[in-house]
């Protein structure tokens, strides 16, 4: 339905543009010698420039009003608060500059629209002004750089420690696996050369000669205990992928032939974030949309969509081939006890290959 309406709208707009051009062409005084803007044009176009400024503002306000709720909820990781603060600070600055500069640009376009009778003001230079607008951005940017680098170092400095648990994220066309280090908290060596061992049961290529690997646990779902630092080691077996966990403000590429790292501490369990008011209203909205879509599907004799329940996801965010758009893994953040009991129900590598 929307499709049909939109197409009709499109056709109408195209036709009206066409008609408009025709009318304008006909209404043009035949005697006009040139195609250079005259005072009349300057008047019209100047006013339109001012209207365009208003259009930009309205578009901005409308977008925030209408789509403000599609943005990600508050961060669910320890460093995420730092990230969000920096983001909002930067946004505030950007908005301020955007509002002022667009206003000046378009207002001047309107205010100084040309008239035959006028002459422009001959102004080639003003060192003081130029110094001002070189120095102010420099100071603001210096502030942002310092704040940014401080956070960056904080996020990216990863120290192996007793308290942290190590998890491998293993990427392949087109799915994810997680590998837990087991009791020894050390991941065994691994390489793609071992993938075909044990009739393909060696899912992430663990090196059987490394004793650290025997108690490793390979899973299809990523479970994380809340409040504990997780050190992720990323690997890929084929092409580049990127492990993107937007709710945790976390992302790192997975590079074949290399192990990359990222670490964060989840601070909200899946249960907790489902109670977040923003998430509740977002889920409600999504379910309304899914319901509407389901009605259409049922009419066509297809299966309706399941209702949606919020879950954290791990998303692939580096183009990796035909199913790049559907390369995902569910993330469950839970209490330490739940995590322990889940993990103890999984098979270790040595059990699995038996």
């Amino acid at each position, binding site marked *: 339905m*929307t499709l049909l309406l*939109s197409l009709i*709208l*499109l056709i109408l*707009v*195209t036709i009206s*543009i066409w008609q408009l*051009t025709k009318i304008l062409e006909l209404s043009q005084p035949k005697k006009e010698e*040139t*195609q*250079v*803007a005259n005072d009349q*044009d*300057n008047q019209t*176009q100047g006013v339109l*420039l001012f209207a*365009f400024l208003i259009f930009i503002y309205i578009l901005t306000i409308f*977008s925030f009003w209408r*789509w403000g709720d*599609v943005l990600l909820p508050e961060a669910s990781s320890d460093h995420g608060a730092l*990230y969000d603060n*920096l983001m909002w600070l930067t946004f505030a*600055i950007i908005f301020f500059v955007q509002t002022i500069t667009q206003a000046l*640009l*378009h207002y*001047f376009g309107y205010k*100084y629209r040309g*008239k035959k009778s006028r*002459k422009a003001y001959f*102004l080639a*230079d*003003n060192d003081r*002004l*130029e110094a001002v607008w*070189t120095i102010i951005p420099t100071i603001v940017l210096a502030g942002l750089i310092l704040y*940014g*680098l401080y956070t*960056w170092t904080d996020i990216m*400095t990863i120290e192996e420690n007793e308290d942290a648990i190590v998890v491998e994220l293993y990427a392949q*066309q087109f799915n994810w696996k997680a590998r837990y280090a087991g009791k020894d908290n050390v991941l065994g060596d691994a390489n*793609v050369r071992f*993938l075909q061992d044990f009739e393909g049961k060696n899912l992430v290529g663990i090196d059987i000669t490394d004793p650290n690997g025997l108690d490793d646990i390979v899973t299809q779902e990523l479970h994380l205990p809340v409040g504990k630092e997780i050190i992720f080691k*990323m690997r890929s077996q*084929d*092409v580049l992928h*990127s492990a*993107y966990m937007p*709710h945790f403000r*976390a*992302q790192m*590429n997975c*590079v*074949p*032939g290399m192990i990359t790292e990222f670490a964060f501490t989840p601070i909200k369990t899946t249960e907790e974030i489902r109670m977040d008011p923003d998430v509740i209203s977002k889920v409600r909205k999504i379910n309304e949309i899914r319901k509407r879509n389901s009605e259409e599907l049922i009419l066509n004799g297809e299966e309706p969509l399941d209702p*949606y329940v919020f879950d954290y*996801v791990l998303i692939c965010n*580096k*183009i990796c081939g035909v199913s*790049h*758009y559907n390369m995902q893994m569910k993330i469950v953040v839970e209490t330490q006890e739940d995590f322990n009991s889940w993990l103890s129900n999984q098979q270790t590598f040595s059990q699995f290959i038996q």
Partner: protein
Amino acid sequence: MSNELDHTHDEDHGHHHKETFITKYIFSQDHKMIAKQYLITGLFMGFIGIAMSLIFRLQLAWPEKPFGFLELLLGKWAPDGVMDPNVYLALITIHGTIMVFFVLTAGLSGTFSNLLIPLQIGARDMASGLLNMFSYWLFFISSLIMTISLFVEAGPAAAGWTVYPPLSALPQAQPGSGAGMTLWLVSMAVFIASSLLAALNYVVTVINLRTKGMTMSRLPLTIWAFFVTAIIGIVSFPVLLSAALLLIMDRSFGTSFFLSDIFIQGEVLHYQGGSPVLFEHLFWFLGHPEVYIVILPALGITSEVLATNARKPIFGYRAMVASILAIAFLSTIVWGHHMFISGMNPFLGSVFTFTTLLIAIPSAVKAFNYITTLWKGNLQLNPAMLFSIALVSTFISGGLTGVILGDSTLDINVHDTYFVVAHFHLVMGISALYGLFAGVYHWFPKMFKRMMNKNLGYIHFWVTAICAYGVFFPMHFIGMAGLPRRYYTNTAFPIFDDLADINVIITIFALIAGAAQLVFLYNFIHSIFYGKKTVQNPWNSNTLEWTAPIEHFHGNWHGEIPHVHRWAYDYSKPGYDKDFVPQNIPLKKGEEELQH
């Protein structure tokens, strides 16, 4: 056209022999004809690129809805009118490649550097007409190869315009990485050869062939922009060429520059010790400067068009030149901001954050200077002028989000999302496209001896300007919601279901924008044949190209080339009745030449 050209032959000076149709229109060595060839090839590729974006926007707005005409258009790649995911990836790849390289590098820079460098510095032609002709024909061949790659059995390259290996290196990884990718690489290699020849020619011409009195500090900002752009190209394009050659070796000769430890389609490959990160470094060593190669000429055009139509000097000429130079220098040391989370050492990320945010300073200076140029002007709001003003607007809107993406911390969560797509389309794609349009409207009379219709120009402008924001502004929200780019559809994640209506709105704006380009196309073609005849200096401009006769002939000026006595921006100078004083008018007694 031809009758006007003929009678100029006898007055023609210099190295002239009779021109045949072939030497005049096809294998021409005249920079003006080569400029037109670049423009028309560029526009042709542009329409292909834009059409592709409209097709994949349909898929994004109405995922997997059947469109009958898609089956007609794409055949087996859109069974029952539903586009195949591989084809989606191929379309964005070729769209990106065409727009960045073929339209906004060759089409924009090639057209206006060729047209304006000799005419604005007062030279009879480029330093080497022959090389110039070669560079156009290499560009033509590379366009042809890229177009042919669309018809390869397994489909064209589909690894994104950044063609990161291993995806681009292994035909097992996706169908587009077979013959399609080979053609892509060959086409780009030829393209790079063409760009290098052209750039060398531009640099040599600007250095050696300026007319008497045209000191570097009197050069119009257009020429400064083209000159510096050519230098950036010479520095960075060879690095892309080496990346392409190494990738060809990995693909065809079994070397391991970029590949290591790969298991694909049930098979362990033999590659050892290479790294895709190396490719990313090489690619972005060109890739980042490339965005300045795209935008600087557009800014140069804007400087000229704004000053001329504001009837006012460009504000802060020296600061403008300084910021072009600063941007050029900094642009070669910021490439790592595309790689913050590539696995490269985080400390390196800090350095690149620092250099990247530095580049915001000269960019800000340019924007402020443009705005001040309008202040107390007497603005002649021609279509070219409107496009230039809109360029400043999108350059600011898109540039500001660069402060987010350039900050390694903030990049973590928006990297490779639609936020990036919104950012680079505004700051580079749309801005440079506006620069191209501004240039076409402004110099059309110089190229085709006729004028484009201004009312059609206004319609083209307003529809495009509104739709450009309508398309790319809402995209920021999709990106901030966490939606990755290069996704065939977002329906695989219920979490993105609420983005559906934004996607529909974006696509509607995109389709209208596409329709508006047909108005431009009509105006362009119609005006070439039936436009109003132009006078010699229709915009009352100061630069030298308008002192050359309307009719074209090899050599540009009859008799002596004009000498230059002042900078290009004496608009509304006190002491003169007219509001412009062309560069070839000597200073009056006691008149001071500003600035120099």
